[in-house]
């Protein structure tokens, strides 16, 4: 029974207790995750301890801030399995990371070059490329999905060709919940010298990345989905591609030398980090990952997978229509003959925090002929009771809307 699925980690998340006290069940973690105590404490510690700017350190508070900041960079790089901390650039989030790439790489493209993007991408991994294609007269090609709602790998491989210049794809979609093995695609991209961008916003939450092994050119994700604070994102850039990255935003910190008419940027990562960074957020994110690192990964993945099975089972038993064949973290569905907005409203009335709509992926919903869907998304702090409450509410809603 789902009720016996308990989360060993739940009590570390004060927000969940507060939500429970208000009768709310959080099943919208793919949108943003609740935060562990260690994250709150790190933020508090930073702000209560006396703040200072980084990278200007004639005084001790500045020195301490710089040390903590660069240690956070190393810790996060370690967690990602990335070779050198100097390849890790801090941004505001996945969206900014991808926009940064789309501007910063733009001199690497020639008219007619092709950008390949998965059909299931979040707007953040579609629109910046679409706009780059418009600016530079490139061709944006969409890698199709197969009948199961996964990337059609043979088709994708066949689309990679001599005109391909960049491939942008996410291993785990925020709508279809299918975990892709991108190895063959990335390998082909390397053979053809195609730039590869991995949108790891959802993926990194459910599989600890090993960037050295993945061997993509660029990898991006957001802290807030990974149990970290808001306003922090990552951009990993493989050293072999550093020289392609032109400065994008200009200002303090990132500049090496300038006069009124000329300026030169520092090398990565500083050259892409203009302005005062979100130091406290970055330190708190590193603290979050350091804590995650102490947990039993296998146990987490097993728990998440048991929750997911239970979710799928319950949806299928009730005849819900799933989008694709989700195998990880989330499921999007519709009730036959019922509008997703109606279902979502009645779930919301009952304190079930799920999401309905187009999930920032309008094109894929359009292509499935759907105006929307309800999404239930899980994290390792969820438990069987959360699912029971969800199904009880779903049954009540279905009865009213029948």
């Amino acid at each position, binding site marked *: 029974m789902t009720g016996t699925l308990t989360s060993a980690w739940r009590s570390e998340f004060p927000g969940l207790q507060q939500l429970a006290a208000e009768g709310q069940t959080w099943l919208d973690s793919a949108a943003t995750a609740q935060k562990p105590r260690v994250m709150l404490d790190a933020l508090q510690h930073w702000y209560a301890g006396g703040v200072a700017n980084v990278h200007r350190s004639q005084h001790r508070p500045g020195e301490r801030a710089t040390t903590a900041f660069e240690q956070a960079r190393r810790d996060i790089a370690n967690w990602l399995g990335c070779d050198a901390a100097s390849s890790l650039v801090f941004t505001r989030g996945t969206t900014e990371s991808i926009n940064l790439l789309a501007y910063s790489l733009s001199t690497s493209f020639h008219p007619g070059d092709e950008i390949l993007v998965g059909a299931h991408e979040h707007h953040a991994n579609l629109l910046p490329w679409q706009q780059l294609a418009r600016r530079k007269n490139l061709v944006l090609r969409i890698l199709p999905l197969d009948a199961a709602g996964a990337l059609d790998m043979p088709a994708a491989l066949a689309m990679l060709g001599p005109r391909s210049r960049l491939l942008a794809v996410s291993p785990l979609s925020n709508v279809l919940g299918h975990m892709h093995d991108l190895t063959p695609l990335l390998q082909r991209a390397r053979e053809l010298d195609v730039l590869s961008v991995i949108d790891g916003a959802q993926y990194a939450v459910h599989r600890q990345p090993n960037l050295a092994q993945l061997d993509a050119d660029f990898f991006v994700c957001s802290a807030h989905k990974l149990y970290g604070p808001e306003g922090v994102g990552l951009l990993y850039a493989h050293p072999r591609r550093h020289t392609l990255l032109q400065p994008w935003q200009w200002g303090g910190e990132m500049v090496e030398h300038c006069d009124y008419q000329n300026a030169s940027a520092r090398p990565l990562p500083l050259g892409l980090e203009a302005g005062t960074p979100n130091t406290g957020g970055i330190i708190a994110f590193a603290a979050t990952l350091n804590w995650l690192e102490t947990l039993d990964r296998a146990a987490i993945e097993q728990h998440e997978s048991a929750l997911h099975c239970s979710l799928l089972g319950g949806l299928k038993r009730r005849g819900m229509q799933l989008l694709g064949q989700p195998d990880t973290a989330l499921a999007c569905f519709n009730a036959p003959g019922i*509008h*997703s*907005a*109606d279902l979502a*409203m*009645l779930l*919301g*009335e*009952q304190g079930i925090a799920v999401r*309905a*709509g*187009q999930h920032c992926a309008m094109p894929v919903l359009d292509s499935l002929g759907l*105006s*929307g869907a309800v999404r239930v998304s899980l994290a390792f702090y969820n438990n069987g009771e959360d699912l029971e409450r969800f199904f009880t509410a779903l049954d*009540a809603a279905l009865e*009213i*809307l029948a």
Partner: protein
Amino acid sequence: MTALSPAAQAMLNEFSACKGWEQRARLLLKHGQQLPALPPELRTDKQLVRGCESPVWCQPDWPDGRLQLQLDTDARLLKGLLQVLRVRLEGLTAQQLAEVDLADWYSRLGLARQLSSSRSNGLNAVYQYVLYCGGRAGADTSPGCAGSCQQAATNR
């Protein structure tokens, strides 16, 4: 604040009698059924109010200076919410319209949450749209002001 019409007062009485979200939901569904469907030729982009996750079509007219409102959407509960809006607004002059306290209206019906979450269901966007069209009703009564609805919706 503009006074309630008899129809609105009746609706208020009905909702006031509801106990809990379930009865309110059923009542909303019932009222939704009373919202006449918009003829297909009026379900065009021109009538589409943006700023809603579910599309809402909206055709306000002022035959004798008083609002007559056609509204439609695909979701059934949202239809009910639109009917609640329609009953409150129909028959008002542009001037009276501007003085309606929508938040108060929905909250007296126990539907405050539905209005405040209107970034997705667009109730406020619809109201702003009607208001906007009402403001220009003298100048232009044709349904051609859709372009500014999103503006209206996001400026609220």
